[in-house]
Structure formats: structure tokens, C-alpha cells
């Protein structure tokens, strides 16, 4: 029972990490109709930039703060100068853009390997979050609890921003009727670039948050991005709240499968996704339309 509880918490912790990636992916898809297969690249980018900052300053917190800036800028530039112009030229449908980002994913992994080699790196756990806490009769690493807290906090903040603020209202309007938003004097291209950058920054943030418990290496983004795809499809593409619940389901399923059914480790979440696709092709939470 205690082991089960630990595995369950590990699953929730993985869920929160994947959720941070899924947010960006699903926001970008919901708003711009772009499936950003390169989302994992920003995860890698953030982690490595965080590593550089951490090595320079010796501070995990500075890395956490500064690290996401690079993916933010890179994502913004990608959307504004590459994807948006291509989409507007009408030459590329959203499927072509998905393929373009597929190339970007591998190019980034290759570039990182070229610069940093294929060695594994890691950022040390900050002193403040070292150790374990007693919880419901088990000992659980404090840092993993921190990840869970961060995930929940960001989810809550996003719901507040999207449901209760002007920015959120503009975003929701942009999903429903792009022309109308433009007619109201909002520069939708800049808004799109900002959201793209924000989503990328969150992915990079996830990369740094995961650094103390998972390794940093050149292909780290390629592995996790597929799990993220499973989350956004199960949650319904473009559905923010759906991706939170879906992240929980996928993260816990994956962790429990690893613990109790190691044979099915690489298998379980895909089997689950396929089951979902058979019964609800629009995703488990996709019925109510896109939330964001």
C-alpha cells in the first residue's frame, strides 16, 4: 500500500511535468491551429539554457527564472517570422507546418548534440528542497512535491487568466473569431507570437524543473513530446482543462505501468490512447468545444 502511494505520487509528479508541456501545445493548437511537433525542442532548449545559467551562477532559482527566456524568444521568433508568414502565404496548410516543426525537432536535438555532445548532465536539487517529508505514513522527496505544487499553481493561474482577465478574453475571442478580434484593433499576429512564446517558455520551464530528477541530454525532448501528444489527444486538442485531467490520467497510468507491469511500460499509454480514440475520437474532454 505504501509503495502504491509512492508510485501514485510519482505518477502525479510526472503528470504535472507533462502538463506544463501540454499547456503550450494545446494553447498553440487551439489558437493558431498549428500542431507544434517541435514542442519538445523548447523543453530541451530551456533545460540546457538553465544548465548554463546554473553552472555560471550556481543558483537553481536563477536558472528557473532565466532559463525559460531563451525558449520564449525562440518560440516567438519562430511563430512570427517563419510559421505565420508561411501560413499567410497560403502555401502551407497546418499539416505542412506540423511537418516543418517535425524537422525542427530533430534539427534542435542535432544542434544541441553538436554543441554539448551526447553526454548526460544534471542540475543539483536546491538546498531548500532537499530531503524528504513524512506524508500519510510514507516518506516522499520534497522536490517531487514541489513539482506537483508548481504544476497545480500554474494550472490554477492559467484558468484564472483565461477565464477572468482581458488577455484571456482576447484569447478566447481569437479562437472563436479571428477576423472579429482583428477588427477590434488587436494585432493578432503579435498576440499569436506571444502565446507561442509563452507556450514554449512553459515547455522550457518544465525542462529546468525536471533537471534535478531527470537527466539533461540532447534527445530528452523527443521522448517526452510523444507522451505530451498522447495527453493533448486524450484531453481533446485545444482543450486546456481537458489536458490537465488527461495529463493526470496519462502520467499515473505510465508510472503505475512501469511499476507493476514493466512488460507494458512503453505500451500502456498508447494502448489507452487507442482505446480513447475508438470510443471518443474527439478526446475524453473534447465534447464541450475548445476552452482555449
Amino acid at each position, binding site marked *: 500500500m505504501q509503495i502504491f502511494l509512492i508510485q501514485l505520487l510519482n505518477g502525479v509528479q510526472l503528470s504535472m511535468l507533462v502538463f506544463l508541456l501540454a499547456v503550450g501545445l494545446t494553447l498553440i493548437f487551439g489558437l493558431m491551429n498549428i500542431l507544434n511537433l517541435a514542442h519538445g525542442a523548447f523543453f530541451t532548449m530551456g533545460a540546457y539554457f538553465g544548465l548554463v545559467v546554473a553552472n555560471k551562477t550556481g543558483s537553481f532559482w536563477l536558472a528557473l527564472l532565466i532559463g525559460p527566456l531563451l525558449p520564449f524568444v525562440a518560440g516567438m521568433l519562430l511563430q512570427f517570422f517563419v510559421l505565420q508568414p508561411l501560413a499567410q502565404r497560403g502555401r502551407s496548410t497546418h499539416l505542412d507546418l506540423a511537418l516543418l516543426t517535425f524537422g525542427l525537432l530533430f534539427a534542435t536535438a542535432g*544542434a544541441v548534440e553538436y554543441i554539448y555532445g551526447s553526454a548526460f548532465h544534471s542540475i543539483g536539487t536546491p538546498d531548500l528542497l532537499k530531503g524528504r517529508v513524512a506524508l500519510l505514513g510514507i516518506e516522499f522527496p520534497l522536490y517531487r512535491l514541489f513539482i506537483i505544487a508548481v504544476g497545480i499553481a500554474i494550472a490554477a493561474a492559467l484558468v484564472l487568466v483565461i477565464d477572468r482577465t482581458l488577455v484571456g478574453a482576447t484569447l478566447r475571442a481569437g479562437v472563436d473569431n479571428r477576423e472579429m478580434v482583428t477588427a477590434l484593433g488587436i494585432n493578432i499576429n503579435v498576440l499569436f507570437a506571444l502565446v507561442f512564446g509563452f507556450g514554449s517558455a512553459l515547455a522550457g520551464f518544465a525542462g529546468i524543473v525536471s533537471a534535478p530528477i531527470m537527466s539533461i541530454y540532447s534527445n530528452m525532448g523527443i521522448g517526452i513530446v510523444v507522451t505530451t501528444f498522447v495527453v493533448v489527444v486524450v484531453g481533446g486538442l485545444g482543450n486546456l482543462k481537458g489536458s490537465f485531467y488527461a495529463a493526470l490520467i496519462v502520467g499515473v497510468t505510465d508510472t503505475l505501468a512501469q511499476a507493476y507491469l514493466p512488460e507494458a*511500460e512503453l505500451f500502456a499509454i498508447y494502448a489507452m490512447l487507442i482505446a480513447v480514440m475508438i470510443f471518443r475520437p474527439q478526446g475524453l474532454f473534447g465534447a464541450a468545444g475548445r476552452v482555449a
Partner: protein
Amino acid sequence: MSTDFILTRDKRVGALKRLPVPALGRAYAALFGPFAVLLCALPFFASGYVVTLAVEVMIAGVFASGINLLTGYTGLVSLGQAMFLGFGGYGIAIGTALLGWPLWVSAPVTLVLVAVIAAAIGAICTRTRGVEFLLITLAFSQMFYGAAIKLRWTNGSDGMTGIPRPDLSLLGLNADNPTAFYYYVLSVAALALLMLWRIVTSPFGSVLVGIRENERRMTSMGYAVANYKIGSFALAAVTCAVAGILQSQYTYFVNPDAMSWQMSGEGVLMVIIGGANVILGPLVGAAVFVVVKQALSMITEEYNLFFGIFFMLVVAFFRGGVLGAISKLIGKRHERA
């Protein structure tokens, strides 16, 4: 070849136009004849290295042609076709090594099984479209990739070795000889492409193109669109499995990497390079891809980096592909004349 035509979208009316282009047909025929002769005579004058490259091109070309049926003609972009490449290789590996069947039993059984499995997978995948289709095909291939890594009786991530090449002793040939193997691959590839050509020029193929251009209209015309999509999915899968069989015979082994999603991406890339919805496009794309890959591997070890950049450039600036560019050129001249 005067019946040759290209299907294009007329930009002015946005409708599907069936262009009878005798000039284009003649140009293809004029190119095709010498090309076929060249392929048949290649081992007589080219070096062993070139023959090996040609084998790789043809295998990749069959793989890409399978993807083209689904992506180019039916308009369903899949990032999971490598799973069928793997099925082909694993199919004959399991058949010959584990079950002890001869190759001439294993290969047909593999292809039939792939058709049945692909029909089932296709029935699920084709319930979605667009990027969702792309993601679910990716998920399926990742699932089988994961299974192939875990399965102990196929040696997990090490894969299976000792895959037999066909016994050509009746013809007085030994398939372990590169030249003999070249002709074996050439015949299989030619057969596969001929079959695909028959498919896309048949009424069935026209329905697939119709689905790509306007699915709703095809539905209202009374076509069972879902069944056609599943059919296209299964035929594409079988073609990819043929490529998988050839590939595993070429290298004498198969491992889970054959099913990786990078492999699927490479196939899609070949289709885009060559030009989707032209029957020989994937073969041209495969040739460009294999040669570029060879050249890259000579000058750099950072394959991923250049693969990614190459991929992005092709998608962004090279949409019609090589044959698309040629068609446009000939089409323009034809219009002027």
C-alpha cells in the same frame, strides 16, 4: 502513354481539373524508357557501391510509394508508416527463424497478416483526420515500437538476425551476390510500383483523389468514404511491408529502429521531395534522399541536425517536389504552345 494526365487544382475556380497533357505523357515516356534501360543495365557498368546505393534507393522508393498512396493520393498524412516497415521485416524474421517456415510461405503470410492488421488499425485511425490522424498513427507506431523493444522472443532492442534472402538457384543465381540481389529488388520494386500505378489509375484511385479534394462531396455522391480510406490505408501498409521485407533481407537483420518515428518522417520527407501524387515521385524523392544522406554521412556525424534542416527547407520551399517542378515547367510550355 497518351492517356497520361495530371490531377491539379485549378486555382481560379478551386475545382479539380483533369488535365490531359499529352506533352507531359510524352515527356515521361521519353524519360521512362532510357531510365528503365539504365536500371536494367546498371550492374554491367556501375561500381559495386553504386549498385548498393541503387538497391537502397529502390527499397526506400517502395516504402515512400506506399506512403504516397495514403498521403499524396488520399490526403491522409501519417507519421506512423514505419510500423509497417517493421511488420514486414519482423514478419519474415518470425516466420523463418522462429517458426521455421520457408521464405516463400513466410513472405505471403506476412503480407496478408499486415493487410488484416492494417485494416483494423486503419479503421480506428481513419475516424480522425488532419493532425489528429497524424498523431494517432504516430501513437500506434510508438506502441509497436515499444512492444518490439520489450518483446523477449524477438530479442528486444537487439532485433533479429539471419533473415534469409530468396533462393534463386532455380535461375542459377545466388541472392547473396549483390548483382543478383539487385535484380531481385528491381523486380519486386517494379512489380510494387506497377501495382500502385494500376491502383491510382483505377476508379478506386479516383475515389481516393476525390476524398483528398473534397471528402464531403464524395460522401454525398454516395461513396462509402470510410471503407475507401481503410482500403487505402491497408494497401499503403502492404506496400510499406514489402519495403520492410526487402530492407531486412538487404541488411540480413531487423530491429525496432525500423519502426521509429524518425523513419516514418524520412518516408514522408521522400514523398515531399519527389512530389506527392505523382506515381514516380517517391522514387525520385528516395533517390535524392539516399544520395543526400550518404553525402552527409561522409562529411558530418551530426546527422539529426542536417536531417532536420533539410526537412524544414523542403517543407517550406519545395512543396511540389522535383517532379512537381518538372510538371509545372512542361505544363507552362504546353499552355504557351
